[in-house]
């Protein structure tokens, strides 16, 4: 919910007008509450049933030993204790952080470059915008299989080109050192369009008279970008960073399809580990405990971001 508030700023005129009305007529506010709840229902009911109820359920499961087949056995906090001692837990978190560390800068810088480029007047602008956005609406399984082919060490297109250029040809997803970079490449490619669209919207909200004034004052192109574009784009940047971090911690599909967490667990991420624990190892209790650990980590990181954003996000 906080994410929505952090999204690109609403027009100030409307923001002033809204709080004024209910203050005038309290009864009207109460009357509206019924309608507000009514219109919230279509999203609130599934949210309640398919998110909050399972969340509470997983908290309960995390306090049990359960292999999905037999009946659950109460073990208290033993699952959490074992997880914190298991070196594999730290590994999967480190792999996830490594993924984010590679993915986030790549997707942000790439998305920003594309947004700035496609904000110019040029031929075929709409075509390029649509083409770059296309992977965003494509199924992850399709994209992951596509990249698995592209990055095939023996006969993939990427290594073919690299070999022709006399560059080293990595083993990509068959090599433990390259498995996470492979996933990063595929993820950045798929999400570039999403980041571009958010930043493009942010760019278009920047009043053009600011640039005109700066040009009159003799500011160079770089100075205009550095002093006007970046600061006024910061709410969009903040949104992209928060969303990407949350999605990054929950990365699963592309890893599952491209590497299966391998070779030798070298690209196993937190959610992949949760999947393995539940469905392959029959340890639903451990998996639920790990889910809650992940939830706490994401919560803390998001809370820190919300706090820190006051220092760098410009509120228009």
């Amino acid at each position: 919910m906080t994410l929505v508030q952090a999204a690109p700023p609403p027009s100030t005129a409307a923001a002033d007008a809204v709080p004024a009305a209910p203050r005038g007529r309290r009864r009207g506010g109460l009357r509206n509450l019924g309608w507000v709840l009514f219109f919230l229902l279509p999203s609130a009911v599934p949210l309640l049933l398919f998110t909050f109820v399972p969340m509470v359920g997983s908290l309960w499961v995390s306090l049990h030993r359960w292999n999905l087949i037999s009946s659950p056995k109460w073990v208290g906090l033993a699952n959490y204790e074992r997880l914190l001692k298991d070196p594999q837990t730290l590994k999967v978190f480190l792999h996830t952080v490594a993924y984010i560390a590679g993915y986030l800068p790549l997707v942000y810088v790439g998305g920003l470059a594309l947004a700035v480029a496609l904000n110019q007047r040029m031929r075929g602008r709409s075509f390029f915008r649509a083409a770059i956005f296309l992977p965003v609406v494509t199924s992850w399984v399709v994209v992951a299989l596509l990249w698995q082919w592209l990055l095939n060490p023996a006969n993939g297109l990427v290594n073919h080109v690299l070999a022709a250029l006399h560059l080293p040809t990595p083993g990509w997803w068959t090599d433990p050192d390259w498995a996470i970079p492979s996933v990063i490449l595929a993820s950045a490619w798929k999400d570039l369009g999403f980041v571009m669209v958010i930043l493009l919207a942010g760019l278009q909200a920047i009043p053009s008279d600011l640039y005109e004034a700066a040009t009159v004052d003799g500011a160079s192109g770089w100075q205009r970008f550095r002093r006007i574009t970046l600061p006024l784009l910061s709410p969009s940047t903040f949104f992209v960073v928060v969303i990407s971090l949350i999605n990054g911690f929950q990365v699963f599909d592309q890893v599952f399809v491209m590497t299966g967490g391998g070779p030798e667990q070298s690209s196993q991420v937190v959610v992949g580990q949760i999947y393995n624990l539940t469905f392959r190892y029959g340890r639903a209790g451990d998996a639920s405990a790990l889910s809650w650990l992940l939830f706490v980590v994401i919560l803390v990181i998001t809370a820190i971001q919300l706090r820190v954003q006051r220092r760098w996000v410009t509120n228009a």
Partner: protein
Amino acid sequence: MKRSSAVGWLAVGCTALTVLAACSQGSATAGSNSSSSSSSTESGSTAASSADASTADAGTTAGSTAGGSGSPSTAASSSAPSSSSSAPAGNTTITYMDFSASGGHEKDLQKIVDGFQKENPGITVKVQNVAYADYFTKLQTAVAGGTAADAFELDYQNFISYADNGALAELSGVDRSVYRTSLYDAFTMDGKQFGLPESFSDVVLFYNKTLFAKAGVPLPTSSWTWADEKAAAQKLTDKSAKVWGDYQPITYNEFYKALAQSGGQFFNADKSEATFSSQQGTEAADWLIGKSGTVMPTVAEGAGTPDFDTNLFKSGKLAMWHTGIWMFSAMADAPFDWDVVVEPGNTTKASAMFANTVAVSASSKNQAAAQKWLQYLTASDTAVSTRLAASWELPPIADDAKLATYLKAGKPANRKAVFDALEKTVLAPVITNQQEMQDDVNDALTAAAAGRTPVDKALSDAQSKVTALLGG
């Protein structure tokens, strides 16, 4: 004003009610076990609990009488009267989920289903074919969610864990004399029968006769050892023509077998420790790993991806292939001459044998009908002849005379090897944390094969991990 707000609240209230209704429905499903006995009385099969064994027996009998002589359960077919009690009930529908029919034998399974339904007009069997790769995840989820099929297929490892966890119904009144004793007993726990043997298969060495002739290498015989196989594989490999000499997956399944072929033990006698990091274990791992890149394609070249080996052999680019007899039908129309032989051993012979079983879900409302279907599926003449004609693994029946047709059912010529291999078999080591153990061993082998970890270290690391898993 007031009215519109009332409408709003009414809507809220209605939705709240709907939610509550959905919840109570959910709890009704959860408690379905208790109500099942009453509802199933209506449908004629009163055997919801195993205490009702005698009734279950009668239910089992009902349909098989209709079929007459073809019925496998001859012991049961004598008690005709009970057919009247279940016949009027009419339509019992049971669901059956399996993995072994997908990928080529769907029609064969349907043939058996049709035969069963003809003999048992009151019972309809709904088949759910699931690919092996997804099967056990799907089954586990279905069992946990209370939506498991009435009857389902299991491999040996999973049978143990499902039976241990009370997910399987006890079977009663089965005529055990129709099954091979060792196979039937494999699915008995504490004197109770929780599964029927459905089929068995073993692994043999497939070879491409044309490639052997071209390279001038003598054909493999049952007296071959690893040394003979290696020498032949080296001569047969022709990298310029993209022809490979040998293919054997570098996996847990091949490792425990190679270990046995070298005379090693996976566990100690009381199964308290893993013991595969030994002289014999290193030999076994080296045997598999040594092939990669020399006579066999590497992982980077595609080895290990689905159907890679199947396609390689079928395209005539692979001279020797370690795989199961379930591949016979897929290779029947290969455009070259091929045959099979018992796998070479190192210091001794050891062939991998796999047995599949079928079981009735403990939560099924139609346990009697489900058991009747499973008895038909595993031992009826229709099932036996369908399996044999399609080379769909081997039926688990005791009567060897019925298996005779298998020996002459077409390619490969040396089908006798399938039975010769049974003389010295090795079963997969099974523990509670099966999947974790297999992952640990597989990871160790992959790392060693890629040269990232020395073989000895990979094995000793995996051994301590597996020993830790034995604790639970």
